[in-house]
C-alpha cells in the first residue's frame, strides 16, 4: 500500500512541478517537427518512380526518429529520477516519510513505480507517434504504409533500456549526490554507447578484437546492446544490408545479452532496495 501511495506522490510531483507536462509538450513538438520533415520528404520521394528506394529512405527516417526517441528517453529517465533519492536524503525531506509506518523498500519501490509509469507513458507517446505518423504519411504518399518490422518487441527493448538507466540511477542515488549520480549514470551509458560503436565498426571491418572490446563494454553497461537489438528487431532487413550506422546492427546482440541486461537491471534495483533499507538517513 505504501508503495502505491509513494508512486502516486512521485507522479503528482512530476505533474505539479510541470516536469511531466513539459516533457509531453516537448515530445509533441518533436513529433510535429518529425511529421513536417517526413511530409516534405515523402512528397518529393513520391514523384520518383523507384518506390523501393523511397521506402528504404522512409525506413531510415523512421529509424532516425526512433533513435532520437531512444536518446531522449534515456536522458529524460536519468534527469527526472537522479534527484529523487539523493536530493531528498541531502535535504532531509526523506526523514518525514521514512519515520512513517512504511518500510523503506516500499518508499523506493513506490518512487520507482511512479517513474516507470512516466517513462512508459512517454515511450508510448513517442514511439507510437513516430511509428503512427510514418505509417499514415507513407500510406498516403506511397500507398503502402511503412512500419517497424517488430514494433512491439523493439519498443519493449527500448523500454528495458530506460528501465536499466532508471535502476542504475536509483542505485547511485542511494550513495551519491544528485549531480554525481546523473554524471555517473550518463557516463556509464557513454561507455556503453562508444562500446557499441566500436563493436559495430569491428563487425563492419571484420575485426574480432574490436568486437570483443564492444562486448566487454556491453557487459559493463548493456544499455546500448538493448538499443542495437531493438534496431535489429525494427529495421527492415533490406535497409540493414546497405551498411553500418546507428540504424543498423552489424553485430547483433544475442538473446543472451538481452537476458544479461534484464538480470543486470533487476540486480541494480535489488541492490538499490537493499542499500536504501540499510543506510542511515
Amino acid at each position: 500500500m505504501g508503495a502505491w501511495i509513494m508512486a502516486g506522490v512521485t507522479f503528482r510531483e512530476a505533474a505539479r512541478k510541470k516536469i511531466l507536462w513539459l516533457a509531453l509538450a516537448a515530445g509533441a513538438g518533436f513529433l510535429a517537427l518529425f511529421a513536417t520533415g517526413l511530409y516534405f520528404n515523402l512528397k518529393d520521394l513520391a514523384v520518383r518512380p523507384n518506390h523501393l528506394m523511397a521506402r528504404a529512405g522512409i525506413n531510415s527516417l523512421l529509424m532516425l526518429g526512433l533513435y532520437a526517441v531512444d536518446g531522449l528517453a534515456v536522458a529524460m529517465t536519468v534527469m527526472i529520477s537522479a534527484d529523487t533519492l539523493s536530493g531528498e536524503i541531502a535535504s532531509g525531506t526523506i526523514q518525514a516519510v521514512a519515520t512513517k509506518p512504511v518500510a523503506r523498500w516500499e518508499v523506493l519501490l513506490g518512487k520507482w513505480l511512479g517513474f516507470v509509469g512516466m517513462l512508459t507513458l512517454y515511450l508510448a507517446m513517442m514511439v507510437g507517434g513516430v511509428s503512427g505518423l510514418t505509417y499514415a504519411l507513407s500510406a498516403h504518399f506511397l500507398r503502402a504504409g511503412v512500419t517497424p518490422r517488430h514494433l512491439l518487441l523493439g519498443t519493449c527493448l527500448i523500454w528495458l533500456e530506460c528501465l536499466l538507466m532508471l535502476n542504475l540511477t536509483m542505485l547511485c542515488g542511494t550513495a551519491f549526490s544528485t549531480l554525481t549520480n546523473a554524471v555517473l549514470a550518463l557516463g556509464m551509458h557513454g561507455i556503453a554507447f562508444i562500446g557499441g560503436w566500436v563493436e559495430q565498426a569491428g563487425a563492419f571491418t571484420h575485426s574480432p578484437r574490436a568486437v570483443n572490446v564492444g562486448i566487454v563494454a556491453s557487459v559493463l553497461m548493456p544499455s546500448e546492446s538493448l538499443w542495437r537489438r531493438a534496431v535489429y528487431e525494427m529495421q527492415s532487413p533490406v535497409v540493414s544490408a546497405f551498411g553500418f550506422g546507428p540504424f543498423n546492427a552489424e553485430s547483433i546482440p544475442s538473446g543472451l545479452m538481452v537476458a544479461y541486461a534484464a538480470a543486470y537491471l533487476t540486480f541494480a534495483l535489488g541492490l538499490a532496495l537493499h542499500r536504501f533499507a540499510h543506510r542511515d538517513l
Partner: protein
Amino acid sequence: MQQFAIQTRGLRKVFGEKVALRNLSLEVPRGEVFGFLGPNGAGKTTAMKILLGLAAPTEGRAVVLGRAAGDVAARRQIGFLPEHFRFYDWLTAAELLQLYGRLYGMPAGPLRQRVPAFLDLVGLTPHRDQRLREFSKGMLQRIGLAQALLNDPELILLDEPTSGLDPVGRRLVRDIIKAQRERGATVFLNSHLLSEVEITCDRVAFIKHGEVLETRELRGLAEGALQVAIRARKLTGESLPGLSPWASSARLEGERLTLEVSSTDVLPEVLRYLVAQGADVYEVIPQRISLEELFLRIIGTDGGL
C-alpha cells in the same frame, strides 16, 4: 504494557573517525514529558535518529514502545518533528497532512475530518490551500507539529519544536505538550530553550560527548536544589565543617557565606548553628537554582567542544 516508552542500553554510533554516541543508556517512563539536553554536537540528534530507525547503532540496543527501534509497527504509534523540517513543498498544507495520514494507514473518511481539525489546532486553517513553499519558518514549524500529532501517537519526539516560533507559537507548543501529557502520551523533547524545558518537562537527561551524565526530575528541582546566600559577621572558616549535616557545600568570602542545601526546611537549624558559633547574621537569601545553572554545572562551560 511496557513501563518505559524508550529504553536504550550502551548505544554507540561511530561515523568514520567521529564517535557521535559513546555509551548512551536511557530510560523514559511512559506518560512523561522528557527533556533531552546537551550542548551542540553532544549526540542528541543522532540518538533521536536511532530511536526512529533513521540510523542504525554501531553497538547497543534501543527499544521503543516495546519494540526494536525502527520497527514499522512501532512507528505507527510515533509522531516526529525533525529539527529542520523539510517536506514536499509543492503540496498544500492540507495535502501534506492527507498524504502523511495515508502513510499512517488512516482510512479516507476519518482523515477528511482530522485534517481540518489539526490545521485548526496549529492555527493554519486560513492557509490550508497554500503551498508549503510559500510558508514562513514559523508556519512550517506549525504544520510540522500538526503532522507529528496526526496519528494520536503514544510517543512524540520533538526536535527543537519552538525553533522559529514567536512567543504566541511557543505558547501554543507548550499548550499542545500539556494536552498530550494529559492524553497519556510520552513526549521526548530536545530543546535548547531551557526556560521552555523547565516549564514543560517532568524529567531531563543531560547528555555530553554521547553519554548521559545525569538524569534529574524537574518537579523536585525547586525544592531539591537550593542555594542560600548569607551575610554575616564574626564568622570564620573553622565553623564551616559544622554545617555539613545541612549543607552539601559551604563557601565563605568575607562576610558572604554561600551554602547549598537540600531544602528550605533546614534553614532554621543553620541559623541557630551560626548564631551559636557567635556570628551576627544580617541577611539570609534563598536562591532557586535554575535549569540553566544546573545545565552549566553538569555540562560545564566549555559546551562539550
